[in-house]
């Protein structure tokens, strides 16, 4: 298993390298420079632009810029913001990352705590009412994008029923504001997890070792929890990687709609503002986060399946 882990870790390096190159190339390929407009339609005088460009090293050859940029990234320096020149990307990220991580964890927990039992019950009552219900809900959850869900939740629960605030001054400090974004973000993961868990449990039900367990006279409850659920959760772990990636990219939309002060929302804002420094840095940040999370999931998978762990 150690070999497996090492190989997976090493694999991240070319992937991230590739991502960084693409990111860099794409951003540098943009014809308008970051200083071409200062917002509000004002255009700076050429001398000012030139001075700024040289200050940020934008006149150096691309390879040098790339190396400098990657070098900075590796030591954790995410670079300057071209729009807010008194703040670096690190500052901005530092401010917002708390809310984003918080939201992500809550959505993840919700997804797991609802999705898995839902899938298990649907499988155990196969073709019964709970099964059809769960399957139907899953399909809708999977096909409905998070921004649709967000809008619907917002309109129904916030605007119409007024149960939850949609915006407030000190936003994230008020727990009532956490509910809707979490549910909106968790919608798709719940559906995916439930679907996979159900499919996996149905397969496990047909396995011979379940019959062996029955032949020992074990209670149904024991057979399900000890023999079946364990085995069926192993394949489900494989989709946790994409789910975590979804939680990250999904945060862009959900945070924007609900106004959550996190880095997902800020990413979207910086796209609109053409703040290329921020865009590049945050792209890399997200890519690294996704790659690392995928790695963690892969290792977890290798760990919980004894066939891989002890081989």
């Amino acid at each position, binding site marked *: 298993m150690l070999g497996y882990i090492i190989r997976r870790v090493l694999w991240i390096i070319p992937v991230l390298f590739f991502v960084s190159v693409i990111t860099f190339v794409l951003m540098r390929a943009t014809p308008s420079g970051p200083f071409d407009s200062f917002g509000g339609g004002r255009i700076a005088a050429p001398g000012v632009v030139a001075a700024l460009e040289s200050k940020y090293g934008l006149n150096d050859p691309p390879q040098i810029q790339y190396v400098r940029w990657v070098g900075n990234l590796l030591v954790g320096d995410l670079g300057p913001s071209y729009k807010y020149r008194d703040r670096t990307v690190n500052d901005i990220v530092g401010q917002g990352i708390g809310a984003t991580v918080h939201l992500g964890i809550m959505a993840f927990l919700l997804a797991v705590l609802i999705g898995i039992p839902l899938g298990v019950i649907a499988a155990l009552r196969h073709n019964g009412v709970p099964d059809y219900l769960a399957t139907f809900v899953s399909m809708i959850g999977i096909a409905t994008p998070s921004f649709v869900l967000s809008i619907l939740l917002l309109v129904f629960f916030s605007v119409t029923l007024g149960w939850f605030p949609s915006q407030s001054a000190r936003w994230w400090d008020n727990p009532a504001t956490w509910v809707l974004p979490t549910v909106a973000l968790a919608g798709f993961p719940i559906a995916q997890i439930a679907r996979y868990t159900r499919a996996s449990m149905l397969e496990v039900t047909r396995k011979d*070792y379940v019959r062996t367990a029955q032949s020992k006279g074990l209670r149904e409850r024991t057979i399900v929890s000890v023999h079946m659920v364990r085995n069926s959760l192993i394949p489900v772990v494989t989709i946790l990687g994409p789910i975590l990636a979804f939680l990250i990219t999904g945060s862009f939309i959900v945070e924007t709609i609900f106004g959550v002060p996190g880095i997902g929302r800020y990413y979207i804002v910086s796209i609109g503002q053409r703040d290329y420094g921020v865009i590049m840095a945050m792209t890399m940040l997200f890519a690294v986060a996704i790659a690392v999370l995928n790695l963690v999931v892969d290792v977890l998978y290798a760990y919980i399946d004894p*066939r891989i762990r002890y081989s």
Partner: protein
Amino acid sequence: MTVTNDQGRAPGDPEFSELPLDVEISTEEGRKLVSLLKDDRPHARKLLEVRNLSTHFATREGVVHAVDEVSFELDYGETLGLVGESGCGKSVTALSLTRLVPSPPGEIVAGEIIFDGIDILKLTGNEMRLLRGKKIGFIFQDPMTSLNPTLTIGYQIAESARLHLGLSRRAALDRAAELLSKVGIPKAKDRLADYPHQFSGGMRQRVMIAIALACDPMLLLADEPTTALDVTIQAQILELIRSLSDEFGTAVILITHDLGIAAGMCNRINVMYAGRIVETGRVDDIFESPRMPYAWGLLDSLPRLDEEKGARLRTIEGLPPDLINPGPECRFSPRCHYARDVCRASEPELSPRAEEDHLARCFGTEPGGWIQ
């Protein structure tokens, strides 16, 4: 009504551990069962009396009569062979004996199964659990898939001992180690923490045997225990089953399509065909003087060392019948060289031949019949 475990311990006692004690005893038969469980003595004339057992499966194409009015008996400590080709109903019979027939399509629709004096078909599903694993052990055919890959084999062996014998975790694992070495796994204690994939096929089957025997059952059902194994291992496994059942006085029903195996292991044999028993008797009688054309065909089809090289293998022509809506005729008649009109009109009963306990289902071999 709660039950105390074998050591007389009840819930609340510190030595007590998880038992199927929350099993609700709601039937007459269930109450009888509970008193039986207190000791290991035989409680009836025969260990197993099966009368007119019928198990059917509901499929899209119709109802399949997998097991049709099967009757037989088994003595305490006896080894009985259930022999026949694929699809003849032998596995379903075994599953029916412990009520593990998969219950959407399948169902035991008729008959009685009297185990140690208890009619087990009258028990509730829950009450049946008191027997499974404890008094009836099952060895399945494919050791590669019959063990749970995510649990240690120590756990899997100890599971039924903890459940049925009320052993603590420590004690159950000790027993598992004992069992493991009894089935011939070296360094048993060290191997308790290993997982099934770390064992070879033959060793996994030994583990299955250990699991089946964990609570010292009265009956062992072995469904083609060696079919999935190498020929060289087969003999070892069979020998193991034989020696252990001798040692513990366990009755065995051995299911196989291999006559050689049956001959070597069993005291008596039931030959099954198309869901019915077509011949039954002591092993010597069946092999020396079979009295049913199907049995002849089976014995005849065994390749022999003293044949001429290049001779064709002898087969029984034709295929087994469709078990959906079987007709009134003798089920073997389409393939039988000796069949006559009476065979196609109605089905013979099992009737005795030369020896009183040697029964065959064939008009032709009945006293006065046309086959000698």
